[in-house]
């Protein structure tokens, strides 16, 4: 019995002791593990710095680790946060959880994707696209198609309380103003638009022919095309006078009070490199590089060939918090 107790004690100490002899960095990640883990493994191999990662899940609507960072504000455990959209970065900045860091590798990334005081930097972006079923005769080319009679009861959109759909709607609020967006959302509802639980589910519904089109993230759209589903991709609102495509870059940032600041800077530099952007472009998520001239697959358009929605992500983040009660009540009506 004494031996068993001794063995258990040794095991427990081993399990709970931290490996202090090796340089390490702790990163919280909202990007899907299946895409982010290979990048972090490559960083480990190339630098010898051990990465302790904590990944988000779909079930927490990809905000679980952000909320853990908020919970740990007075007791920071993370060095770096890899967010899958800049609005989460803005929320953290406004709560005083970040410190500024301008990476040399941020050079070449358009200014709109870099926070003015360098609290976060965007890289490898998703864009919000229309995924349209192959059998649809008149393909929609604007998000206003959600309110068109031709698509009554034939369109689907992900729950606007969560994820990139919320961010997209908040961006529209900053661009169009409250009245116009509320009118749009009411008309969208009146037109019998279905609400799905996620962008992935919306994409599946369109792929199965249940709905004519859906507004989804580019990774959801490209993956259905790769799976040879009967769908096509439309970059919406590209004409003159139209707002353009909403771009959702990843964002990387350093945590205030990070236990390993030097290793954190190295990881941020690595994530913002052109090589990382190329890897994410050729991964299944098919993310669009923000550096120009980075090699990328042919089924996605380079950022400089897309009309991009011009928004201030700081304002979008503020608006996002402001519109939550409205969106909740809109959903429950």
């Amino acid at each position, binding site marked *: 019995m004494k031996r068993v107790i001794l063995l258990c004690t040794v095991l427990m100490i081993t399990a*709970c*002791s931290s490996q202090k002899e090796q340089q390490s960095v702790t990163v919280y990640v909202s990007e899907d*593990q299946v895409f982010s883990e290979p990048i972090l493994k490559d960083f480990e191999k190339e630098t010898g710095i051990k990465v302790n990662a904590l990944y*988000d899940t*779909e079930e927490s609507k990809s905000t679980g680790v952000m909320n853990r960072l908020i919970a740990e504000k007075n007791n920071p455990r993370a060095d770096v946060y890899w967010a899958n959209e800049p609005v989460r970065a803005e929320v953290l900045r406004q709560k005083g959880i970040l410190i500024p860091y301008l990476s040399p590798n941020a050079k070449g990334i358009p200014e709109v994707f870099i926070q003015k005081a360098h609290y976060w930097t965007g890289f490898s972006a998703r864009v919000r696209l229309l995924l349209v079923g192959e059998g649809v005769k008149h393909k929609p080319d604007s998000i206003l198609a959600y309110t068109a009679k031709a698509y009554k009861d034939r369109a689907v959109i992900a729950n606007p309380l*969560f994820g990139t759909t919320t961010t997209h709607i908040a961006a529209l609020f900053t661009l169009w103003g409250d009245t116009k967006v509320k009118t749009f959302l009411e008309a969208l509802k009146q037109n019998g638009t279905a609400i799905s639980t996620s962008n992935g589910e919306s994409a599946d519904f369109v792929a199965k022919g249940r709905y004519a089109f859906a507004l989804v993230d580019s990774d959801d759209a490209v993956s259905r095309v790769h799976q040879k589903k009967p769908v096509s991709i439309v970059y919406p609102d590209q004409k003159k006078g139209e707002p353009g495509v909403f771009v959702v870059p990843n964002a990387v940032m350093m945590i205030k009070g990070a236990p390993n600041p030097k290793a954190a800077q190295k990881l941020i530099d690595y994530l913002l490199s052109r090589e990382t952007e190329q890897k994410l472009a050729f991964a299944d998520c098919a993310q669009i590089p923000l550096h120009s001239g980075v090699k990328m697959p042919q089924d996605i358009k380079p950022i400089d060939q897309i009309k991009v929605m011009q928004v201030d992500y700081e304002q979008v983040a503020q608006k996002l918090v402001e519109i939550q009660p409205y969106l909740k009540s809109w959903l429950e009506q």
Partner: protein
Amino acid sequence: MKERTLFGGVVAFLFVVGALPLLMMLFGSLYDNGRFTLTAYKVLFTNTALLESLKNSFLLALTVATASTSVGIGLGILLGKSDLRFAKFFTLMLVIPLVIPPYILAFSWADLFGEWFFGFWGVVFVLFTVYLPIAILVTMLYLRQIDPHLEEAALQMSSWKKVLWLVTLPLIRPAIVFAFLLVFILAFGEFSVANFLRYPVFSTQSFVYFSAFYDFRAATAAALPIVAVVAMVFWMQRFLAETKMHFIPASLMQKIRLLKWRLPLFLFVLLIVMLFVITPLSMLVFKTNSMESFLEAGEKALDPLGRSLLFAMLGATLLSVFGFLSAYIIHKRLFRWYRWLDGSILLLFALPASLFGIALILFWNRPYTNFIYATPLILLIGYLGKYLALTTKITETKLVQIPQNLMDAAALSGASWYHTLWYIILPLSKEVLLVGWVVGFIFSLRENTMTMLLYPPGSDTLPVYIFTQMANGKASLIAALCLIMITATLLPLLFLWLYNTARRRDA
């Protein structure tokens, strides 16, 4: 050291591990910026989506509990009281869905049936297969309590059919009630299957309120009806099913001779095993479809699996030790308020894991407790709080069987309470401690919801790794990871079965 001092320390430790974080969270939900307020609780009466999900949860739990108990009692009698061929093997097979993470089964069934499986009936079906073994095992356990003379006397006058209906079933009524209530509670608090199959239930709300909105006050408020349901169910169970367990050896039980029904019933049970166990597992093998997927999964799973096994072993050891100590306190009624200990342990078991996880974050996330919060110790504390009820109840079944005169004789010979515990009770409980360890190991290994909230960076476990891979991961890789997870879960069960078989052979 005095007996009451030592065990008082144990109770104090368990209070800090389990009850205190929950009480602090409840307290915190009543205050906003230092002012007492009930605003967080308004959500219970004003949010229609929440009320709708509450209705869904009730309906789901009721349907699953009714189906599992009805079928489980029949199968329990067949497997535990008849001369059915391969009954032990079938029992072991039917336990498999209970010990593997439920979302793996949901993943497998959804792959087989496709889109129409998503929704209420899909969740009911998966949870029915998961919780059916509970009703079977509880029935089999209670059947071993029936005095064989009662059935023997009844059989002089009547057939087995009538004896079952008029004698056996009324005698195992506590089993029926207990199984129904236990399945009801577990189905009511279940999170992963309903979430995967996109059926809105109440337990997902507390997770979403914390994870998506970081509103722990609303999360606590949203979980309050679950606490109320759990408390009500245990209160009912106390009156309906409180019986002392005294088992008779299996060899003395009155066995039903199936005669001409032996083959049809054998085929019937075989069909159930094929449908509920073999089919979902085969689907995973089919989905894996290549050796490369297995190799890739093996490589990716190596680190998380190693951590999972280590944490589960340590968790199981803690659960066995504290399960034994708690069972001793409750059995010997060392303190006047032993029922509170019993109730708290059961409440923690029945509470949604997400809620307990949130409470642990709020309680331990402080610079001076980083040695717990920032290390896997937080997971071990979570496993201990959540699953202590299992090892406590398992140990209690043995303690009630140890004759009091053994203890009296030891006391008369001058043995202290410590010597009696160490040299009499502990050796006699060795086997039940092993069973408790295996149960603790399996439940710690398969735990997912709480681990997802609590694991320190770089310490993810295999169930968490599989869950995160489910977002955009390759289906063949996920299936292979699920098979690795199932193998890791079933191995200790297999060892226990082999150990028991060898022991019986020696006896």
